[in-house]
């Protein structure tokens, strides 16, 4: 069996979408100066919420909305602790991941045998008929387009809007932004919730489209890879797309190689996305993190 390059590239778009969604959310969170290591936990919560909602309503769209709400809800737990109780962000993020993975397993256990809810493809009229580019770019479901649109919107928000400027100021120097009268806590709270909603959407894309059924530990480290991509992208949305598609590429390619039955053992192929993450982190983590990243903010200090 040969690898069809057009199908492969289209598969890369699909494989990248969960990571891209989670990463664009985390990018906004980190630009506001909060390090949320709970992406994996929020993603898997979104995955289970999306799956349950989609199955009880029969609609994938409602499922995705449920996933975003679920991800945002679980992220408020983190937000309250980190922003109002000034807990250690690294430890709290880890707690969120441990908690989320357990919660998802608990909620999902009666859905293990459930079948698939079809997420309809939405080919874009006209554009999808372009040879080569059409099948690669324009014959996907709405969530794929949404993920790319979100990246563009976040880029516009961060670089072209006043609110985005305030968010970046808070991330660079929370004390100075506070002195200027900007609502540090409110902005950070909203940023964390946005990150949670995005991670939830990404998780639901895994459970409703990529896999698509419920299994324990379904996200398998995608949340952590999303965190790595934010570092790789040096906190810039443009590079984020490249990073996410690179990883999607490795994932899709190794699945394709597995299918061709090449002489490389399956196990060694399936560890390639994780190894690739490490290599990319080593080779390309040159960017500068937002100045206040990870530091708790307390108005009196």
């Amino acid at each position: 069996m040969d690898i069809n390059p057009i199908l492969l590239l289209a598969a890369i778009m699909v494989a990248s979408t969960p990571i891209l969604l989670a990463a664009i959310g985390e990018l906004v969170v980190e630009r506001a100066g909060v390090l949320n290591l709970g992406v994996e936990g929020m993603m898997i919560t979104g995955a289970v919420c999306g799956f349950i909602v989609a199955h009880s309503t029969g609609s994938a769209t409602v499922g995705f909305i449920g996933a975003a709400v679920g991800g945002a809800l679980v992220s408020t737990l983190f937000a309250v602790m980190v922003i109002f109780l000034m807990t250690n962000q690294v430890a709290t993020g880890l707690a969120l991941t441990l908690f989320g993975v357990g919660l998802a397993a608990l909620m999902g256990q009666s859905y293990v045998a459930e079948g698939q809810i079809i997420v309809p493809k939405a080919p874009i009229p006209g554009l999808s008929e372009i040879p080569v580019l059409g099948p690669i770019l324009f014959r996907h479901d709405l969530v794929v387009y949404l993920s790319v649109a979100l990246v563009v919107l976040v880029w516009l928000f961060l670089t072209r809007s006043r609110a985005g400027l305030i968010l970046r100021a808070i991330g660079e120097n929370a004390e100075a932004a506070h002195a200027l009268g900007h609502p540090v806590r409110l902005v950070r709270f909203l940023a964390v919730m946005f990150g949670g909603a995005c991670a939830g959407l990404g998780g639901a894309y895994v459970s409703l489209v990529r896999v698509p059924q419920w299994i324990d530990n379904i996200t398998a480290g995608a949340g952590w890879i999303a965190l790595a991509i934010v570092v790789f992208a040096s906190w810039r949305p443009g590079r984020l797309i490249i990073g996410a598609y690179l990883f999607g590429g490795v994932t899709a390619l190794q699945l394709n190689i597995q299918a061709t039955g090449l002489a490389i053992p399956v196990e060694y192929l399936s560890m390639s996305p994780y190894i690739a993450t490490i290599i990319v982190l080593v080779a390309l983590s040159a960017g500068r993190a937002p100045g206040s990243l990870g530091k708790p903010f307390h108005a009196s200090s």
Partner: protein
Amino acid sequence: MIRLEKRPQPSQLWTYLTPVLAVVVTMVLGGVLFAFMGKAPLEAIRTIFWDPIFGEFAFYYRPELLKKAAPLILIAIGLSFGFRAGIWNIGAEGQYIIGAICGAGVALAFYPTEARWLIFPLMIVAGILGGLIWALIPALLKVYFRTNEILVSLMLVYVAEVLIKAFSVGLMRNPEGMGFPGSRNLRQYPAAANLELIANTGIHWGVITAVFAVIVAQVFFARHQFGFNVRLAGQSPRAATFAGVDPSRLVIICMCISGGLAGLAGLYEVAGPSGQILGSFPAYYGFTAIIVAFLGRLNPIGILLAGLLLALTYIGGDAASSSMNLPAAAIQVFQGMLLFSLLSLDVLTNYRIRLKKAQVA
């Protein structure tokens, strides 16, 4: 209006009080969770926390408690060095798995030679080295390429999980296992087995090593220059540099300690309670140990107590899942809630709560 006022120094009293309070809060929240799931909350709490130690079948559960606590304590002691210095080794689970693979590899290579005086010590060395090397990867990458040790050590957990699955059906599969996945059972190989030293107590070499590690760590933190350097680097990296602490060396040493101990825990587990290399070998100890380290306040004695408590949740959780049909994942949620409430309550350690009327500006 409630205001938080930063304490000049963390409160000594609350430092010791919050872990206890966190356990109580988690029991209450856990009870609410169990009630939500339609289980009797008090009965569930009693099944998890009381029956394994004092109940009718305590003679069975008590030894299990030590077997589960030993790896948690060993790993958490190692993590506490790095966590104190602000070095975040999150991949202990991976180092634990690789330690088990290396230790078991030595045993399987010597099979069926009967020379315990040689094989068992060699396995211990291999287990330590395996975990240590797996932890050295993120350490060296952090020192030389400034990569984030959290992400790298975590990615290596997934790699280790794939490796142990691959080995259990490939390289290390039992040739007499009739095609089933899994290596030879080391418990049935006297030269390599890590069995109970005194029958029905649960005490194997891992338990003894864990107690030993607690004592050594206590001495290090209280009496030795290195323990002081670790604390200094965590509290004030700049001051530590002026005091002549080399941050790169500290990263490497702390990662090696935590990796080595995690590998050692993996070896004792694979040669003892678990017995074989199998895809289902990873038991989440490496992650639960993070909770143990924090709950124990990164203090060796505290870690000893926290390790026993978390081991209890594992055992009580098992008991509750068989007698009350409580899903196994509920315990994981419970453990997550424990870390949440501990971290939240720490606000009392670092801040004073002031009740004040809102003033007109």
